[in-house]
């Protein structure tokens, strides 16, 4: 019999990381259905183009860096989907493709592929695109009207809830519209219920830690209830804050990206809190519309710092409770 040497252990859990990545991709499909329901087939076309661009870019960068073709890795699919879902449905096709290329070639390739990137590629891609083509992303089509495949001037574009909030106006959205989510906004982020359902699916698959999105949303609602418009009550301003920007979407999919999170649970809580604080600062003093994405990009830079702090805590605690010599 052929004996092959392998280090212990010889039995393994059945869970595989390609499957883990695929779970987030599966959890991203329902928002696409909602977008297709609101804006027609165009959203699917935008999504498809972005995902193909991201996957092709990832394959090319893997081959260039001599890492070997890993076609079973689903993280570029997730990046492409997130980028597509945070765009307005009437966006010209080349903008999400450029965002996906930037996300893979500038954020993942120099750091060495899937597990090593320091920043969230989708967030960086979106930041680059809002920087270069900010005006085309500012206004959104009206939901429940199917868009033609090629968008021309006939399509009526309105301002999203976030830009209204930015200018001090109060978005006049009734409660049931908020629940159903058919108000102007990025493609996949307006419907809160669908995103909450996907969050539950991710929690069941043990792909996402429950306390990361929870602390994020709790700190934001704490801020929102403290500083709000004069004629908005605290509870209303919380709801408007959560719904206006694509906050819920970022909290569920981009904040909990396992690669860019700190490693210890305490570090993850710190990370979520700083992300929330910086989101609110960007929202009050910033200029850009999707402030949650930029804030996330900034807090990614702090993960090594949180790792080091929390790890020092553990080292001290281990030395205090006495070393267990065998």
């Amino acid at each position: 019999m052929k004996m092959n040497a392998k280090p212990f252990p010889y039995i393994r859990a059945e869970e595989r990381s390609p499957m883990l990545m695929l779970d987030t991709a599966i959890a991203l499909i329902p928002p696409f259905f909602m977008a297709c329901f609101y804006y027609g087939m165009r959203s699917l076309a935008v999504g498809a183009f972005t995902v193909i661009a991201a996957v092709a870019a990832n394959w090319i960068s893997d081959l260039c860096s001599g890492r070997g073709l890993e076609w079973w890795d689903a993280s570029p699919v997730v990046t492409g989907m997130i980028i597509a879902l945070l765009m307005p449905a009437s966006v010209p096709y080349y903008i999400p493709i450029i965002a996906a290329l930037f996300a893979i070639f500038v954020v993942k390739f120099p750091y060495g592929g899937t597990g090593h990137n320091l920043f969230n590629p989708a967030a960086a891609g979106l930041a680059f695109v809002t920087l270069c083509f900010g005006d085309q992303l500012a206004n959104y089509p009206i939901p429940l009207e199917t868009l033609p495949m090629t968008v021309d001037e006939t399509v009526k574009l309105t301002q999203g809830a976030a830009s209204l909030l930015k200018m001090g106006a109060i978005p006049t959205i009734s409660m049931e519209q908020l629940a159903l989510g058919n108000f102007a906004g990025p493609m996949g982020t307006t419907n809160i219920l669908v995103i909450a359902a996907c969050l539950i699916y991710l929690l069941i698959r043990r792909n996402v830690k429950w306390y990361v999105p929870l602390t994020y949303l709790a700190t934001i609602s704490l801020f929102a209830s403290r500083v709000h418009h004069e004629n908005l009550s605290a509870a209303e301003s919380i709801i408007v804050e959560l719904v206006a920007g694509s906050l819920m979407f970022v909290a569920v999919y981009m904040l909990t990206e396992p690669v860019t999170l700190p490693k210890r649970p305490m570090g993850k809580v710190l990370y979520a809190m700083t992300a929330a604080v910086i989101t609110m600062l960007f929202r009050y003093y910033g200029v850009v519309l999707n402030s949650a994405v930029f804030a996330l990009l900034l807090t990614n830079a702090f993960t090594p710092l949180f790792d080091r702090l929390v790890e020092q805590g553990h080292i001290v605690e281990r030395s205090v409770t006495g070393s267990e010599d065998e």
Partner: protein
Amino acid sequence: MNLHNLKFWSRKGVILEQKKEPALSRDLQQFFSSQPTSATAEALKEGETVTLERLIRLSEEANIIDEQDGKPLAKILRKWLTKPCNRIVADAIDDEPYVSSQTNPMMKLSADAAYGLRLLQTALQPKSAEFAVYKEMYYLNCRIPTKIEEFPVRKMGGKYPMEKRAVRRLGDDVLTVGVCALIHLARAAKEGTVQSSCFVTVAGNCIGNPANLEVTIGTPVSALIDRCGLITDPTYLAIGSAMKGIAVLDADNTLVRPNTNAIIAIKESKPNLRRMDCIGCGRCLEVCPEGLNPMELYRTISVNRRESAKLLGMDRCIGCAACSYICPSRLELCEMIQSRKEKWNCNKQEVKGNENER
């Protein structure tokens, strides 16, 4: 029972599917490949008073070796000459899957085990003496007895790397001795036979009829495999348990040692060619019993940073391979840490003294 034990006791660790069944309930078979040695130890006479020194001399002559960690029984008992002993626990905990090389002899040769434990009890006069068995063993065909003669059998629960922590949790005024060592002690006391055999489980999903065997020390692994029959060619053949064993490269020359508890032949269903790097899922952090951070350790060790790896607690790693078990990207976390532990430690040794003194 200091705080450290309690905190790391219950939460950390992996729940393993034990798959103990066909080997555990089958009765113990002898498989002596060579005739027993002619050397004999001096047996206990009828009226002789059983003292600790006498037992130490007896176990030295019969050179009995404790199967937990391969140390001679005499050395363990010598520590207790001065220390007061509060309790004696006969350790029959098998927390690794497929392995039942301590529970099975305890059940099948319970008379010898009880006799050995009684010898120790009269010698050390502890408050209580008992057997300890692993609790999370389900779908068993036989029933674990709750009392063996006059000693109770205590079930100790906990997730996988539980044996070392269980021993630590009992406290340091407790003597824990392996059941097989007690059986050999009893035989040496009755007939004066020297220990020439040890108890091994031969199991795994490639073995025809897995069973517990009493094997003379030094029989090659191939003989055992032929004895139990192979259904298909195994992808991995390991001596020692499925979690901590060492791969057998050529079955004829690897011999059974006193502290090997099992020989495992496993066939992996799906060949695992889809490798990925660490994606930071954090499962190995929840699982590590020592509260270390295998992700960070793997990253610093792969970049050969010795100081920061030591600072992260590399020497605390007990090598239980729970992190490598749970890792979805199939990274060799535990092997990387253990191999570097020896490499960096032994480098220090070479600087100081000769290599084989370690």
